[in-house]
């Protein structure tokens, strides 16, 4: 990968592909790359005459069509009206569990992260939860998280939600809900499957031939560098400016 902005463009385009087919995606605060991915899908659908895409961005006044306060996103997800959401994790394990609380023994954790936010809830209710964590290291991708903020698989209760894919700076994984684990789908250039193995602390399925994550095509790049970054600038001015300048 020749530069930071190219890497980001691949991530954004990959997110747009992962979201294909959804009607409503909600994006957490401070998430410019997921937001850009969602906006790219919306722009592409509009261009191609496909069904419209709704995007809600938490904490944004411009991209907020909620009128019932902080609970509305959660209610909306429980009603089945949110098709996709993004979650990160200080730790993510091979079973798809995420830890947003800290490492070591609770409550006096060695490292304390902000907290679980809505993860314990939304993971059950949003069909396509995209795990997005740029840092790809054994520190993040661990065999077993120290604290389960949100569990991926709970056979004891019916649920429509859960992890759909894991996207990092190095690779894209699918999550297989039946197998209860990740499968490597593609590796972003210039990384190799060996790089992924080396930097992933949990076991995952790996196909015989691992594809390269496709770079966005020219039409997608034009859309991204034009309309999408302009729209993004409303909510993430600094990020959009940097991306436009680099392009």
């Amino acid at each position: 990968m020749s530069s930071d902005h190219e890497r980001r463009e691949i991530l954004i385009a990959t997110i747009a592909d992962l979201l294909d087919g959804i009607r409503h995606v909600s994006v957490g605060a401070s998430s410019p790359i997921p937001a850009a991915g969602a906006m790219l899908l919306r722009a592409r659908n509009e261009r191609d005459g496909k069904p419209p895409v709704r995007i809600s961005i938490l904490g944004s006044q411009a991209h907020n069509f909620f009128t019932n306060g902080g609970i509305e996103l959660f209610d909306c997800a429980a009603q089945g009206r949110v098709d996709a959401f993004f979650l990160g994790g200080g730790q993510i394990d091979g079973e798809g569990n995420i830890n947003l609380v800290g490492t070591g023994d609770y409550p006096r954790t060695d490292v304390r992260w902000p907290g679980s936010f809505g993860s314990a809830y939304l993971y059950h209710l949003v069909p396509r939860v995209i795990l997005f964590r740029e840092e790809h290291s054994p520190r993040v991708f661990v065999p077993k998280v120290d604290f389960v903020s949100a569990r991926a698989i709970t056979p004891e209760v019916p649920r429509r939600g859960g992890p759909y894919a894991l996207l990092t700076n190095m690779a894209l994984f699918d999550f297989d809900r039946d197998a209860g684990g990740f499968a490597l789908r593609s590796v972003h250039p210039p990384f190799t499957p060996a790089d992924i193995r080396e930097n992933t602390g949990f076991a995952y399925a790996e196909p015989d031939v691992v594809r390269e994550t496709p770079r966005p095509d020219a039409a997608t790049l034009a859309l991204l560098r034009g309309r999408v970054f302009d729209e993004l600038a409303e909510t993430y001015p600094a990020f959009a400016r940097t991306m436009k300048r680099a392009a």
Partner: protein
Amino acid sequence: MTEIVALEALAARVAPGQSLAVPVDRSGVAMAATAAIVEAGIDNLHLICVPISGLQADLLIGAGAVKTLETSAISLGEAGGAPRFGAAVRAGSVTLRDATCPAIHAGLLAAQHGVPFMPIAGIIGSDLLEVRPDWKVIDSPVDEARKVVVVPAITPDVALFHAPEADRAGNVRIGRFRELATMAYAARKTLVTVERIVDRNLLETEESAAGVLPSLYVDAIAVAERGAWPLALWDEYPADEAEIARYASMARSEDGFRAYLSTFLTHRKQVA
């Protein structure tokens, strides 16, 4: 009926040891009142963040005012982790009640509706259930058997927030930030700071009334211009990101925090 009082008098209505509900940064945080609470030495608070907090919680924790912290997250957002929160966790000086956002909303709704608990979707499988023994998993009493989490009612002693304006009767404009209303419905007492008091009746028209918390739920109001600073107040001013970054940097050390706090309290007094 709603009393209109001075900021210090408003802060004095929070007693040491009480539970205090405060909103998320973007919804209108009463930072000026927070300074007055610290100034007044009110401590041993049970802070309930609806459903998360940032600078306000970190400041109160750093000032030693918080005994128990009930929240779904504490973060300074773009400015990074909340340093005094982190230090307090490491020191074990604050009792943690980790939550997840909708569970805090659900607890307040239980209080709003006057019921002892509220069922909530999801959560099953989360270690939050281990660290929150007050949350229960029950079999749904209706329809087919199915496990459901229930959370107890959250009835804060005091709800505290900042809003653009109130009218003379004590009606407060909250716009779409309906979690502010939920907090007030649930709380035993609600204290509000505002940028200004307006002469017109905010309940006058159907359109203006829709975004209003009625005075019935508001015990006292104090005027505090730029009362959310350095946080944003919707429709009024953006966050002072430089100031929040300055806090994030200084509060990394105990000494730096003390220096920041001292300046912050002085600044607030000069504004008032």
